[in-house]
């Protein structure tokens, strides 16, 4: 699988700190602007708008004054090994790149059968129900030149800003480097988040912050049990948030409680949050 110009195997991934996320939506806006996501004058039909990065509001479901609210920013999870959406695609229009771990989408090959949308449990895939981006009113001047706009009738999704990887690589090659430094390639949402809730990097590189963060007991993934192996991780100190990351039968969820934070000791005995 190794290409001549790419030493070692990378696995790009992201850790989102839910405790830091304020739900401001900057990641959504940055993503849409960066990736030339189509917009319409009326964006109220949420079943048909395109939001590669989407915020889900979650709540602990308790009555005031115990109500707590949080947000799950949800990009494509870039599921690993056997992404649900990849093997189903009829036209080989979506692929998992083993050199980067990125699940890509070839717009000009997609026939728009939407099987991949049905297969993705995160709702991360979006179909172009209308003609692309308004071409009049000069809005095409705001397009990112590195990202191709999509035509009507094809499926699109978060690419981990793949073009930024290309850009970073080109730059590195120009400087006669073959490896990227940490932080040279980050996604638009990572860069834009004012709370710095998103960390992006190579999960295979032990030096990268992300590969340390994913070992933390507060780190979890969405729907881990069904075996999609997402490369997007979440981090929260609150049990009710972690519990909403997956489906659990009664009694199945074991809360992680940080009893002695100073000594970096972790216990799974019930503590602050009870379920």
């Amino acid at each position, binding site marked *: 699988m190794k290409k001549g110009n790419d030493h070692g195997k990378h696995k790009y991934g992201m850790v989102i700190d839910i405790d830091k996320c304020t739900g401001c939506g900057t990641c959504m806006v940055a993503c849409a602007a960066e990736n030339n996501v189509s917009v319409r004058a009326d964006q109220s*039909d949420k*079943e*048909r708008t395109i939001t590669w990065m989407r915020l*889900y509001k*979650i709540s602990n479901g308790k009555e005031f004054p115990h109500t707590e609210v949080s947000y*799950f920013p949800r990009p494509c999870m870039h599921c690993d090994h056997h992404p*649900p959406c990849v*093997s*189903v*695609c*009829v*036209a*080989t*229009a979506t692929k998992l790149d083993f050199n980067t771990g990125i699940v890509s989408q070839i717009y000009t*090959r*997609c*026939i*728009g*059968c*939407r*099987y991949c*949308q*049905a*297969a*993705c*449990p*995160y*709702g991360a*895939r*979006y*179909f*172009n*129900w*209308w*003609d692309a981006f308004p071409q009049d009113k000069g809005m095409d001047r705001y397009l990112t030149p590195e990202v191709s706009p999509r*035509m*009507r*009738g*094809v*499926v699109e999704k978060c690419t981990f800003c793949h073009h930024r990887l290309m850009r970073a690589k080109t730059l590195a090659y120009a400087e006669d480097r073959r490896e990227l430094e940490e932080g040279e390639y980050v996604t638009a949402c990572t860069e834009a988040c004012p709370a710095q809730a998103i960390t992006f990097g190579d999960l295979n590189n032990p030096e990268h912050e992300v590969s340390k963060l994913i070992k933390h007991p507060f780190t979890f993934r*969405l*729907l881990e*049990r*069904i*075996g*999609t192996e997402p490369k997007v991780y979440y981090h929260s100190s609150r049990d009710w948030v972690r519990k*909403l*990351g*997956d*489906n*659990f*039968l009664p009694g*199945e969820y074991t809360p992680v409680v940080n009893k002695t934070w100073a000594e970096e000791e972790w216990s799974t005995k019930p503590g602050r949050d009870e379920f």
Partner: protein
Amino acid sequence: MDSPLLPHGVKRCSTWAFFFWTLPWLALLAWGGLSAFLCLWKGLNQTNMSNVFAFALWIVFDLAVIALGAGAFFTGFLTYIMGQKELKNIIKPAVIIGFICYSGAMAMLGIDIGQPIRGWFIFWHANIHSMLVEVSFCITCYLMVLAIEFIPIILENRKLEEIKELRIFGHSLHEIMAVFAATGTFLSFFHQGSLGGMFGVMYARPFAAREGFYIWPWTFFLFVLSAIACGPCFTILCTKLTEFFSRKKLVPDSAIQLLAKISAWLLSLYMVLKIADYLGWMYGIIPRSGLTFESFFREGPYGVYLVVCEIIVCGILPAIILMVPKGRQNQGWLIIACLLNCTGIVLNRFLFIVVTLAIPVMPFDRFWGYLPTWQEWGIGFAVIGYGFLLFSAAYRYLPIFPKERELNPITE
């Protein structure tokens, strides 16, 4: 007016009556034509499909007509390969129904994909791991087989028969029908199965996901079995409908009874396996995903009543009626049982398509509901209109019921 075209020795309604009969179906076709035009011209925003309901009414229609059209390959298999000579009396209508169902489904699929002009990418850039690729390959090939099976039937038209070359060609095709029946059986087995496999392999959707044998999820085998259980019933229904409208007996009871009996056994076997499948899934995949059966029906318009209907009302009940000789020999009960059987299979496809998508997998997501637009209905109904038109034209101009003359001697 068109009497030189009508088959010998049978009675048909007047040309005018036939013309008026076709009007409602032509109207459905016009409605569908307008809808198709809008969908191709303006895009799929004309439908109520969405990023949640990526598959909707059309896919339900597709899967339903393909299952119901299974009567064609299965009757062919029984007639030519198992040597059930009795079924020669019903094989021609079965083939025509199959042709209608498959060509209708293909036409709908052509509109359903977002980029119809790229349809050939399925073959050119085929992803051999995708069940949908297998479906597309087999359906396309099988439609050709059906067309080949349809040709000799068309060539039996009185006027065409007069042309010697065509007559010889038609008869030679007849001779080798067994080859096509075998090919059709092979192709049908795989695409009926892959249509089920399509849903079983969606391992991240616990409502549809199934375990299975090697690369084939259980839905693969269940879809094959359910299709051959309901296909013959649909053939019976269509024949009965033709008999009702033409007010005469067209197929000897023995052929109908044989089909009904075979259907009964297959449906019973299917019900046993389907219930086993439900149980295996309820105690395997669902708890492993951290869910319960009830959690799928917590909210939204699609309740557990759909499953009850599928299994009991439209599964076990028709199986019993068809199984009991007294039941299937009674015209009324036979028709009710066939109707229920077909409804059950359509319901099964509906559950796998629409209900699967309506149920959120992420715990913080919501349940969804969906209603089709008139454009979606238009295209669905156009397939029905097309079916009525083609079938009535075939009945009028071709001798598709070999026993018609014998059963309805013209007295004067």
